């Protein structure tokens, strides 16, 4: 095999990354060990004080420090317990780095599992293309899964990967979402987090790509960046047209989201209001939202609030004017009202 063989070069890079970062002691183990040493020193200090006090005949002082000695010993015991508790956790935290042949086997398997596998030793990237992904009738196209080896070792999660849509069909509401579980080329691995971490730590590159491919082929409707039902945009409830998220307008009265063509405005307060929530004052001919209109208690017509008499609950046409005369004849919608008749004198 030639030294310049990309499979050999990439395999060496993977091995180097895992070996470089595998020797680091996990932080919690380091802290636990240092805590034990600290307490051990406190016990030693207390015992040294006791010994000195006894030598000088200061027996009362020695007895006092003795209490401190046992206190520190109990704390040391706790710290030892914490350290020993980590024994089982960290037995497999620093696995043996596999041999080069294993990594080369992984790369050969990757070439069998995927199309268009590219090995870029200079850029330290392994890439493989999936088949076209289709979820619930929506074609998302193929994805190129890129493993960036410079990230591997520092982390063992989907952050080592970029997922590039090669024939993108992003969500209408967000160009960055090319798959329900991919945004900005980053996969949210969900149930794949744990198995992906395990296979990356063990250098099982082919399995890592297969796991990511499985996530791409699955739609988790309970937790997508964009639901597939909204992938091509939200449907306008007025006209039924498909509209992207940025092109939706909310009716302040009923909270419906409508397209630009179907949204209107209140002529009084200028709020965005759908046509279903607007009613027109037949006299002023202005369209009013629910907040800006009232209804006459007598004739029942729509009255814009600027014209409405709140004290009487009447429109201008039904309201008596200041002289007390009924001005209802001015209102074309009103029935003629009857003038109150004087009361008949009581019979003698």
């Amino acid at each position: 095999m030639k030294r310049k063989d990309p499979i050999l070069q990439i395999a060496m890079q993977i091995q180097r990354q895992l070996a470089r970062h595998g020797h680091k002691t996990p932080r919690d183990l380091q802290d636990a060990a240092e805590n034990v040493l600290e307490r051990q020193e406190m016990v030693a200090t207390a015992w040294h004080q006791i010994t000195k006090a006894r030598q000088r005949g200061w027996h009362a002082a020695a007895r006092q420090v003795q209490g401190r000695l046992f206190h520190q010993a109990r704390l040391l015991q706790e710290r030892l317990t914490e350290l020993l508790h980590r024994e089982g956790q960290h037995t497999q935290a620093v696995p043996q780095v596999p041999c080069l042949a294993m990594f080369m086997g992984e790369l050969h398997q990757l070439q069998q599992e995927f199309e268009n596998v590219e090995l870029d030793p200079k850029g330290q990237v392994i890439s493989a293309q999936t088949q076209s992904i289709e979820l619930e009738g929506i074609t998302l196209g193929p994805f190129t899964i890129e493993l960036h080896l410079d990230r591997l070792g520092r982390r063992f999660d989907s952050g080592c990967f970029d997922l590039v849509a090669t024939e993108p069909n992003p969500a209408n509401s967000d160009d960055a979402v090319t798959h329900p579980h991919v945004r900005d080329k980053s996969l949210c691995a969900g149930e794949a987090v744990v198995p992906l971490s395990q296979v990356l730590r063990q250098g099982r590159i082919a399995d890592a790509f297969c796991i990511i491919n499985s996530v791409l082929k699955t739609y988790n409707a309970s937790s997508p960046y964009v639901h597939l039902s909204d992938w091509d945009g939200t449907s306008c409830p007025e006209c039924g047209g498909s509209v992207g998220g940025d092109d939706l307008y909310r009716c302040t009265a009923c909270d419906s989201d409508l397209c630009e063509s179907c949204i209107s405005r209140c002529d009084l307060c200028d709020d965005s209001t759908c046509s279903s929530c607007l009613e027109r004052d037949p006299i002023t001919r202005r369209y009013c939202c629910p907040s800006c209109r009232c209804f006459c208690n007598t004739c029942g017509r729509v009255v814009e609030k600027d014209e409405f008499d709140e004290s009487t609950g009447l429109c201008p046409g039904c309201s008596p004017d200041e002289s007390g005369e009924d001005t209802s004849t001015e209102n074309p919608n009103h029935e003629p009202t009857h003038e109150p008749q004087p009361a008949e004198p009581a019979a003698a």
Partner: protein
Amino acid sequence: MKVLFLNNEGAGFASHVEVEPGTTVDKFLAAQLPGRNATDFLIRVNRLPVAADQVLAEGDRVSMTPVKIAGAA
């Protein structure tokens, strides 16, 4: 005899499993994952696709990866 079993589901453990000589791949999976459907997994023996009735040999490397894994946001 022993085979290396790489289960890429859940905790994704890898372990040596003792099997009877003559055990086929489908019987092995039925024992390891009772009640599960083999078509739900990508199954490889020594990195190669295999038939369900292939007989396992000493030291074989058996891996299985779910074909559907739920992502998130």
